[in-house]
């Protein structure tokens, strides 16, 4: 409990994390608004996934969350604070667990706000761009089960990205390298998948890609065309995050600080 309190105090008492979380909310909602504003639906009908469009901002918001998460660990290493932390709480796995809990909760709460803002903005804007009952679309509402899944899943997605960042940073320790590794994991899979000619390979790459698979949680239409079901996709990201945390925890346990 004290470890949790200590981690919360560390996060709360420096201005950086607060600003980053605020930026994550603003950017997510702003990009979602831009995307919703760019939608056009011709008279002949369109194949638009309204929930997915309003939640486009998660693509940008996740990078801010990743910075926050990696900085929470690598910041301690760059200032030498980690030695004090580990002296105060010699049980190292407890330190990592407390960090995971605090950063996970903070990003989940931020994600919830960002997602709510995005859905609200999407609901207001999409209606003016042809996504209306006349084209066979209901107004975006969290009462709809699939929209709720997309929204709640997106908030979880942000939290899982934070945990992935936390795990990588614990393993790597340096902030520049760890953010590079996290962004590489997120972006390289879809880029590679886009040039692989073999359809089976592309499908497998999409299935193991933390970003592509994780983002399946946002799909509300045409689910059959996806290589994985939405929750399975988020599960892939969860597996990546768990793997990174495990590796980070192991290295933290085995290495000198």
């Amino acid at each position, binding site marked *: 409990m004290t470890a949790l309190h200590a981690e919360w105090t560390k996060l709360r008492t420096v201005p950086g994390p607060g600003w980053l979380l605020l930026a994550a909310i603003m950017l997510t909602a702003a990009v979602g608004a831009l995307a919703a504003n760019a939608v056009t639906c011709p008279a002949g009908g369109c194949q638009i996934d309204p929930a*997915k469009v309003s939640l486009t901002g998660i693509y940008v918001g996740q*990078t801010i969350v990743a910075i926050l998460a990696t900085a929470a660990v690598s910041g301690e290493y760059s200032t030498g604070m980690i030695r004090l932390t580990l002296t105060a709480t010699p049980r190292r796995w407890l330190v990592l667990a407390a960090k995971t809990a605090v950063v996970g909760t903070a990003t989940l709460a931020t994600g919830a706000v960002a997602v709510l803002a995005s859905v609200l903005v999407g609901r207001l804007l999409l209606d003016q761009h042809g996504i209306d009952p006349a084209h066979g679309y209901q107004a975006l509402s969290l009462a709809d089960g699939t929209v709720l899944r997309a929204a709640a899943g997106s908030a979880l997605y942000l939290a899982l990205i934070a945990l992935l960042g936390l795990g990588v940073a614990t393993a790597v320790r*340096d902030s*520049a*390298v760890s*953010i590079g590794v996290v962004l590489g994991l997120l*972006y390289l899979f879809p880029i590679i998948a*886009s040039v692989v*000619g073999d359809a089976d390979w592309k499908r497998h790459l999409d299935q193991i890609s933390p970003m592509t698979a994780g983002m399946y949680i946002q799909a509300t239409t045409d689910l059959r065309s996806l290589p994985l079901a939405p929750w399975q996709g988020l599960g892939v990201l969860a597996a990546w995050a768990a793997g990174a945390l495990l590796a980070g925890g192991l290295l933290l346990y085995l290495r000198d600080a």
Partner: protein
Amino acid sequence: MSVTAPYRSGRAVGTSGFRHLLRAEWTKFQTVRGWVIGILVGLLLMVGLGVLTTKNSACGVPPTQTNPSGACPAPPTGPGGEWVTDAFYFVRQPLGASGSITVRVTSLTGLYATHAGSAVPGEIPTADLTPGVQPWAKAGIIIKASTTAGSAYAAMMVTGDHGVRMQWNFTNDVAGLAGKVSAASPRWLRLTRTGDVIRGYDSADGAHWTLVGTATLAGLPSLSQAGLFAASPGYSANSTSFGGSSSKGGPALATGLFDQVSRQGAWPAGSSGQWTGQDIQGPADNALQPAAQGYREAAGTFTVSGSGDIAPAGGSAGAVTSQTLVGTFAGLIAVVVIGVMFMTTEYRRGLIRTTFAASPRRGRVLAAKAVVLAAVTFTAGLVATAITVPLGEHLLHENGYPIYPTSALTDARIVVGTAGLLAVCAVLALAVGTLLRRSAGAVTVVIVGIVLPYLLAILSGVLPAAAEEWLVRVTPAAAFAIQQSIPAYPQVDAAYTPGTGYFPLAPWAGFAVLCAWAAAALALAVFVLPRRDV
């Protein structure tokens, strides 16, 4: 009273020349093991990902007896060496070294299918076709070296939406009279051959002629084929929107109505010579019924119907060079991380105070860092691309992919340009690292600034087409235009999107956008650095 001279060190005044600064920065770089390893990891990832992706792609054609490996057939190549589509209906006679043909075109109509049908020719009955002429449907007169697909030609034609055009050797296109052709406003077309030189004329009344263009077809045999032709590229409708893009399309047919056909000069078959109708590149080039193409002659009026196109083909029939360079992104992330750390580590360790004490002109320190970093990343990038491109092309070739033919100059531009892209990105990262002094923030800013726009632009269905194009125009991701090996042609309607390998800016212009970003960031860093405490 004795005057004591103030103390002066006996040592010679140190030089603060740029060369020494470079040496100092190079020493800093090569003695940090992590950075050297990082550069090597980036290099290996570039090569490794290139091999991985090219090795695991196969051109999906079912193997046959004549083609046991299932390799994709390479399209015919034009006189310029580029891949071409050369499929049309040709009503022809031999023509000698000099002569001319003149016709009046009174109508251009078309039919198109909204679905592709199956691979079996004749799958779509003519009755299922929708009336409508494609924008680049063509009918007119042509002088062609032979009936072989890809041979040299020059043609005058009316088109669906683009008026009269003179086109030759696939890549050249000159506009003539504007407006659509109809019985009320017919178009007269004329081609004259004098040796290798072919001139195209058009006229709205048959009396006043305008020279549209002059084509020199090198090595045109003295006996060429000349006559009437019709062709229509397929119908396609693409709608790209969020959540997925959809495209539908099918083959199309163009029918031209010609009369007042007159010939002068050396026509070996004489003025009453028989016309021969021929479907160039065979009837199996699309799913239309073979009977749909053909020609009729009645009382001096010719009706010619053809499908296909006479145009450059693009790269979709095989692979393009840039496909081997997917690892650029991994290399990019590595050099960005190292570029940022080259500066931020000095701040974190406090070394920056020593550096600036030794060399108080801070702008020069930054310049020296930029030079060292650019040289290292350029060299590593060049090694990686020089290995990856030939190796990847070899693997693609083994997997049955024909590779879009490029000149040595284009290949050199792709190899050197990609290395340059890495170097300039590293310098951009250095400048951003200097400005922000925070590793994580600087790395994210640069990667999000260059990789994310590219990713959003190539993943179709994430952004609308206009936004995709804008992203690869103004963001540093514009620099990926340096890897484009297939030119876009205005006379071919195709999906020219970043996802299919086309960029809105010319290769070096796109690269210049990245350089401008790097220069701006560097200038800002040079401005800010002396005005800040360290």
